[in-house]
């Protein structure tokens, strides 16, 4: 370091130096540009105004709120309320309209589809999949196989009250546990399972009496699943000759379902979602392509 008391001027540029020097390079003492400096001062003044007007300083358990009471949280909540209010009118129309009216009115349909898509993602996709294709035990909503019916009204009813949901209006169907409750002999279960498998286009076990199986079927199963095995929607008895089985399409799965049937639950959405959203969901699910 050189002597800092003596002002030193760089010969080449005519600018005073700071006296700092590194390896022979000396730092010139050029002042900050005026415009930069004044902008900096203006920012300081601005910041003081900002402290007064807007929330700024954190306190121990709260913060200074500012004279304008600005709050982004309140703004966001207000925006949510405004969104609700904006949707209220068309939502009311949607609730009042019949499901068929919704399908034939573009404005209502667009709203229902958008609303339904959002609600489906939030509420349904966990079980039915984001594309509505379901999983084993959770019905595929894309295909045309409907256990409880695939018209707009059927879908709406299922959505509203659920299946075995505990709601008073819930759809309830019960498959007896033929094996667990010893309603049928083990042989009979093998026979009837093989009979159903043969009708569904599956491989059957060798040496099983299918005719005996048919007798068992007609005595025990046909009441609900129908003599032609096509099921009965009123009691939620699935079609046994379709391509898609809710609990898996294999002989083992059929046997398991006769022995100790599984009966899944669809929640009732009435009361959990507003009526307009339930209707929107019905329209949306119906639009997948399998709707009747």
């Amino acid at each position: 370091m050189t002597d800092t008391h003596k002002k030193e001027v760089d010969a080449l540029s005519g600018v005073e130096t700071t006296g700092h020097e590194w390896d022979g390079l000396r730092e010139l003492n050029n002042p900050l540009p005026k415009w930069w400096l004044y902008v900096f001062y203006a920012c300081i003044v601005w910041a003081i105004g900002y402290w007064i007007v807007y929330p700024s300083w954190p306190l121990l358990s709260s913060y200074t709120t500012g004279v304008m009471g600005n709050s982004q949280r309140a703004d966001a909540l207000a925006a949510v309320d405004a969104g609700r209010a904006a949707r209220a009118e068309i939502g009311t129309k949607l609730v009042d309209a019949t499901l068929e009216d919704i399908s034939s009115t573009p404005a209502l349909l667009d709203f229902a589809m958008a609303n339904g898509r959002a609600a489906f993602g939030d509420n349904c996709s966990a079980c039915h999949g984001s594309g509505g294709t379901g999983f084993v035990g959770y019905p595929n909503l894309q295909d045309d196989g409907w256990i409880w019916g695939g018209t707009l009204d059927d879908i709406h009813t299922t959505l509203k009250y659920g299946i075995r949901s505990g709601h008073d209006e819930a759809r309830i169907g019960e498959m007896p546990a033929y094996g667990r409750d010893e309603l049928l002999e083990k042989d009979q279960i093998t026979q009837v399972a093989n009979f159903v498998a043969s009708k569904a286009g599956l491989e059957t076990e060798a040496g099983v009496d299918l005719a005996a199986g048919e007798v068992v079927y007609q005595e025990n199963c046909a009441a609900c699943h129908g003599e032609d095995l096509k099921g009965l929607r009123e009691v939620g008895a699935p079609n046994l000759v379709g391509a898609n089985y809710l609990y898996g399409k294999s002989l083992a799965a059929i046997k398991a379902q006769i022995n100790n049937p599984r009966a899944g639950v669809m929640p009732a959405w009435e009361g959990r979602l507003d009526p307009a959203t339930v209707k929107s969901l019905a329209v949306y699910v119906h639009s997948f392509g399998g709707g009747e």
Partner: protein
Amino acid sequence: MRVEPDAASGGNEPEEWFASAKKIYPMATHGTFRRIKWALLFITLGLYYFLPFIRWDRGPNAPDQAILIDLEGRRAYFFFIEIWPQEVYYLTGLLIIAALALFLMNAVAGRIWCGYLCPQTVWTDLFMWVERKIEGDRRERIALDKAPMSLSKLAKRTAKHTSWLMIAWWTGGAWVLYFSDAPTLVYDLATFQAPWAAYLWIAILTATTYLLAGFMREQVCIYMCPWPRIQAALTDEKALNVTYRWDRGEPRGPLKRNKELAEQGLPAGDCIDCAQCYHVCPTGVDIRGGLQLDCIQCGLCIDACDNVMTKVGKPTGLIGYDTDENIQRRLDGKDPVYEIVRPRTVIYAAVIAIAGAIMLYALLTRDFAGISTLHDRNPIFVTQNDGSIRNGFTVRLMNKRTHDRSFLLNVEGMPAGSRIEAVGIDHYFEGRPYVVVGPDQTREIRVLVYSPQDMKLPSSTPITFRLTDTVMGEVVTTKDFFKAP
């Protein structure tokens, strides 16, 4: 270690490291090139200011403005051509042709664009004319700049800047008219009902015009524009350029002295060193230094020099459009040659013709209908209860005509027994959905394709969607795939 300042700077005196640009006071001149420049100024500015008002009838469903860029409607109109956003490659083609035209101009006669047509040149010329009318010619303006502020100076300055701002404002005003119906927008602007974007753009273009044409002028050409650098690489010894014929002009000197020298049989040039050539130059160039970056080749020095030569009774053309080659030929005692048709220009012209022909062909054979498909991603396919497979597609149909059109949609490549269903479409003709698309619109429909029952399809079958106009017969297709397990 301390290094002495003198050792560091090599003991030199402090130099001037920065020089601010010298103000240029171009002098008025008259002659052939000045007249050409006035004519081009009238034509180019006339086109710019009045084109938006030209009407072009396109029927009831389209705007009637001949040139319109409808940003809101996502359409661009140019007389009989209507461009959709996805056809923006026509603009690319146009830019390619423009670039090649610039190359060709340069190969034939140097910086024609810079000297006569560039907006910077044209508006600067207009601003200089205004300046000259109000503040006087070169000498008066230099004197005025030096003079202390007075009432008359203030009046002149006010008049000049007001006029400049008026022109600049009109420039910005004309710009926005290309983006909206011109008469309506003029009315809305006047009654303060126009959208804020219109006022903002007028303000921006007013500011840029005022600053660029009023103050920055030649500095735009010299420091901001890339073209001077590029053109230096494009010119050659056979290209016509504004050239000082130094073979004839040098050694330059006062008229009287050179006359005496000539009488004594000593070498004496025609250039009388009158400085007119660089006093009229809008970029302050001395053309006698040869071809240079700052020279926009506007030809005004040719006019100035010709006027002087005529006055002193010498042949004109001491400064003129000429080639490097000819200077050399004259020195060698040969006649000058002008080869405008040479491989370079022929190739440029041919490429322009090819690009233009491709554009024209594309324009004449372009589709007025369109179809694009998007296969469902989730699920990719659905097995129906009867065993058939369903694929879902989002299909967008385009109608670029200005009237309703009806189409039949068909899927090709699927085995017999397949069927197609369009959601929300009630009319079918032989199993094909019959879809109406509104004028100048697109329509999105959901299309479901079903494979035949009991048929095992490969995991992916290439299919073609074919859209047929039921009246005009136009056919457009797009390819997609039918997916199966």
